[in-house]
């Protein structure tokens, strides 16, 4: 029988570090806390009326912290503590998912290269302000280009350690 030594580092050992990761040409950091909401409606106008704010009209577009992810779906990343009306009785869904995901900020001249290491989209061609759901390898993420050399990545909490270390390995 062949005995294979145990791994020095196993998946169970992966954790989010306290410090940002600074690599050549790119920096990876945890984003600030946000109030996160999933906003759903067939008719955006009803949501806009309820929330008193404009929503981005087209999938992939973002506006004032809100990304349009699907034809009836928006993701709002608002300052921590923000409360929204739930719109009870209206044909809408407003659901607080503040704790569901963590945000990463990928910044620097090699930010595109780092995200492209595992994301199949042509991230280099994203205009500033584009936000979309996609994957990094097998893990679902939302990629949001917030500046020429800065991206915000949303990932579900339990997948965050894996994503962090996968990005760190690629950086």
């Amino acid at each position, binding site marked *: 029988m062949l005995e294979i030594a145990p791994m020095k580092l196993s998946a169970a050992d992966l954790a989010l570090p306290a410090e940002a990761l600074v690599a050549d040409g790119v920096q990876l950091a945890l984003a600030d806390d946000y109030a996160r909401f999933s906003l759903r409606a067939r008719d955006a106008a009803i949501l806009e009326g309820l929330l008193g704010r404009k929503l981005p009209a087209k*999938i*992939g577009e973002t506006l004032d912290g809100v990304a349009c992810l*699907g034809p009836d*779906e928006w993701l709002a990343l608002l300052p921590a503590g923000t409360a929204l009306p739930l719109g009870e009785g209206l044909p809408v869904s407003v659901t607080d998912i503040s704790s569901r995901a963590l945000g990463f900020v990928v910044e620097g001249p090699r930010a595109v290269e780092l995200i492209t290491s595992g994301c*199949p989209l042509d991230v280099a061609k994203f205009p500033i302000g584009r936000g*979309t759901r996609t994957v990094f390898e097998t893990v679902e993420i939302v990629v949001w280009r917030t500046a020429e050399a800065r991206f915000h990545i949303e990932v579900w909490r339990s997948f965050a350690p894996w994503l962090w270390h996968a990005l760190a390995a690629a950086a």
Partner: protein
Amino acid sequence: MLLIHCPYCEEDRPEVEFANGGQAHIARPADPSAYSDPQWEEFLYIRRNPRGRHHERWRHVHGCGRFFNAVRDTVSDRFETTYKAGEPAR
């Protein structure tokens, strides 16, 4: 890896964002209890396996989340067209 045109996102996206949902245009009857056993069996289990043009469902699960329909050639794997759920078969 295929590139699939999502009719909701209106762009070509990589296959890894999608999940195949089997044959398209099999509507659940409004009143299943009116179906005979053979009719219900047909609805549940009987599927086409064409060589060539095939209507199938896909979901842009890691994108906009929407189910949509596609016509794909099972020989070449090429998509002829994709269209939104609810639109008539092409």
